[in-house]
């Protein structure tokens, strides 16, 4: 009986009864199997599969491509802006796009760069070189910047750059003041035209070897000023203009007081303006992020491991054929309706109904046990039960036909009391 073939009758169906149901001599051993047709391939060709895949995925592919195209067009159409402070391409409040555009409208060719080398290449006689926020440039870099023969404007120079440019003025090392307008108090034409400017810098004072050619403007009572005009050391015919802080040139503040006038005049002396905002040098302390702490092989290794994980995913992600599916019969418990009725009793607090059911069930079983017909009267049943259990009649009749229970406790007690009575009848 362990082989399916012994069960199969000659005409096909299997006899589930096995040997017991079959008359002797009719053993059926011929195996009825169905040989399917030999199937070769799934009727597709490489072209038809490619076509099917294309039809299945074309919506997604076309959608992705058009999204990519739209993104490229958007990028190409958007003017290039930066977020670097005092950059001529930065339209945000701390940028200097307003000043650069006005200068451009006035005929000045503004060339923005962030590379010192490029700035050195662009600058020359007949140009103005503006250096903003040099971040403590090394001495040799500063010298190469200053030796191009162009006029130089330094905004918020570091001590090293200022010292390389001139020893006529030095930092006054005052703590930055709140940006209140300060009057020019000098005869330098640009400053005089500006009248008042707002700047928050630490001011300059004249150096020990200062000559009369050096003008300090926007001075305070001690003689330290926000703006100085002098010449480069070593090349006395090249004008050097120094402003202690660039906050007055930003988009936000350029319209305040005479900021715009000072900026336009200071930067508009020549036809070409080379605007250098030097790249902040990368050091381990600032910039570079976490990669600065990693060994040099870490990033390539991580990329390689990513490749391994990708291949692993492709290996594991390809199933050996699709999942086989099957319709299963519904799962409805047969006792569901009974449970539902119980919940209904509970929700409507039908203690009377529940109690009556329990009593009827117990009475029915006891009556059958005692051999009473179903049609016998309550009195006959009580009488028979009393005789079987030797309990007082009023007790039995109270239990079986008394008032309905009124609460959880009453119902539970009725149930257990009925159980007890029933067990006594059954023992009797």
């Amino acid at each position, binding site marked *: 009986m362990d082989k399916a073939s012994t069960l199969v009758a000659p005409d096909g169906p299997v006899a589930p009864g096995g040997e017991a149901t079959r008359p002797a001599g009719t053993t059926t051993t011929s195996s009825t199997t169905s040989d399917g047709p030999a199937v*070769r391939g799934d009727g597709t060709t490489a072209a038809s599969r490619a076509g099917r895949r294309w039809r299945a995925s074309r919506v997604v592919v076309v959608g992705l491509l058009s999204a990519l195209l739209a993104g490229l067009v958007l990028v190409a159409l958007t003017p290039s802006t930066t977020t670097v402070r005092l950059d001529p391409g930065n339209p945000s409040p701390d940028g200097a796009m307003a000043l650069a555009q006005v200068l451009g409208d006035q005929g000045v060719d503004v060339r923005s760069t962030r590379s010192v080398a490029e700035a050195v290449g662009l600058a020359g006689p007949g140009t103005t070189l503006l250096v903003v926020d040099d971040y403590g440039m090394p001495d040799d870099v500063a010298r190469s910047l200053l030796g191009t023969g162009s006029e130089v404007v330094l905004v918020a120079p570091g001590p090293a750059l200022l010292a390389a440019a001139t020893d006529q003025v030095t930092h006054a090392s005052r703590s930055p003041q709140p940006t209140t307008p300060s009057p020019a108090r000098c005869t330098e034409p640009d400053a005089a035209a500006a009248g008042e400017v707002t700047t928050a810098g630490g001011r300059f004072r004249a150096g020990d070897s200062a000559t009369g050619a050096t003008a300090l403007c926007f001075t305070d009572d001690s003689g330290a000023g926000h703006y100085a005009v002098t010449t480069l050391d070593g090349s006395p015919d090249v004008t050097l203009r120094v402003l202690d802080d660039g906050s007055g040139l930003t988009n936000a503040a350029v319209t305040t007081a005479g900021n715009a006038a000072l900026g336009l005049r200071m930067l508009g002396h020549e036809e070409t303006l080379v605007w250098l905002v030097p790249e902040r040098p990368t050091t381990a302390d600032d910039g570079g992020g976490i990669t600065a702490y990693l060994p040099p092989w870490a990033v390539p290794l991580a990329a390689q491991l990513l*490749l391994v994980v990708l291949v692993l995913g492709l290996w594991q992600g390809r199933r050996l054929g699709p999942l086989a599916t099957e319709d299963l019969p519904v799962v409805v418990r047969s006792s569901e309706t009974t449970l539902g009725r119980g919940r209904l009793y509970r929700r409507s607090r039908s203690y009377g109904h529940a109690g009556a059911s329990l009593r009827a069930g117990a009475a029915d079983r006891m009556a059958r046990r005692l051999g009473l017909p179903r049609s016998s009267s309550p009195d006959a049943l009580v009488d028979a039960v009393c005789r079987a259990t030797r309990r007082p009649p009023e007790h039995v009749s109270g239990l079986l036909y008394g008032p309905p229970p009124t609460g959880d406790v009453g119902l539970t007690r009725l149930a257990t009391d009925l159980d007890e009575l029933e067990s006594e009848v059954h023992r009797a």
Partner: protein
Amino acid sequence: MVLTWRAVALAALGVVPVLLTRTVATVLLWAVVVALVAAVDAALAASPRDVSVQRTVPRAVRLTEHARSTLVLRNGSRRRFSGVVRDAWQPSAGAQGDRHPLDLPPGEQRRTVTVLVPTRRGDRRADRVTLRALGPLGVAGRQASIPVPGTLRVLPEFASRRHLPSRLARLRELDGQAAVQIRGEGTEFDSLREYVIGDDVRSIDWRASARGQEMVVRTWRPERDRRVLVVLDTARTSAARIGDQPRLDASIEAGLLLGALASKAGDRVEMVAYDRELRARVAGAAGPRLLPALADAMAPLEASLVETDWPGLVALVRERLSQRSLVVILSTLEPAAIETGLLPVVEQLTAHHTVVLASVADPAVAALREGRSTAAEVFDAAAAERTELERAAATMVLGRRGVDVVSALPDELAPRLADTYLSLKAAGRL
């Protein structure tokens, strides 16, 4: 295109040059190398669509027994096929290890055998055969899933056949074939024979004895060639689960045992499965062909979620049966369904036939009736009590209309129904 673990190993091998050069460009280069090797390897693999597949599977198998699904694979390409083949079946076909490694030179054929141990009655269909051919390096390969039709009919388990020998013994006692002859009540007159000591004196045929010298007794045998119609209700009430199987499965067990017993007793057995239309019918099969036919017809039956069309069922029975017969309805004793469905039409049946209603009872309801620990359980117990009372009332009403009701737990229904049949036969009520 599929990749293997070797492709992963190849990708991982790239760690060495990457650590030596320490540039991301090496990673990109290595990725290109892996992709190229995989593409070339896949291109050199045999085409899985050039392999012809033939599936051989038994037509039918009994539940709990196993069958073998054999695939004959023939390599029609000019390359050596080296890879894996999967013979996929529906989950409840119970395929044990459906993946087989396959190494197939050009022009040769191999066979793979997948053992099926079905877990559910009915027609189990084969899914696709998936062939995965790997390239010579084993880094990548090609894969195709090919529909290869195949169906295995899983017949009912017929676990109740263990009750058959004892019932057949009782049948032989009734039949007068046992060593001790006993006389049944209300049975057919068979023959006259001489009185031997021990015979029931009430069976002495005085008239015949007076004619001759010897005392003569009459012998009897139960009727033969009666018709038994098993009606299987496949409507919504049969879908409800009792334990972990639908009520229908227990009904099928009972129907099979009754069919086996009745055909041994010489009666003609027919079966119909019905809800709102005829789902299956077995008629005209007798002897050793009956049981296979019954099992085959019942195997694919599933309960459908509709209400039974009782008038239609009665019309069907009256059309099928002209002479007085035993009609066994395998349905449920659900009071609501009985009141609205069977009761109004049952007298049309009982007027002409002996009717037995066999119903599978739920042990869960009996367990609910015992609950006493919380008020909620007592409410459930009361509901169960009420259900039982209604069932008892329905049984009584049906009994008054001449229907014998057999209600038993799933395991006991088949033997109880067989006993009912034997007692009806012994009483000559067929």
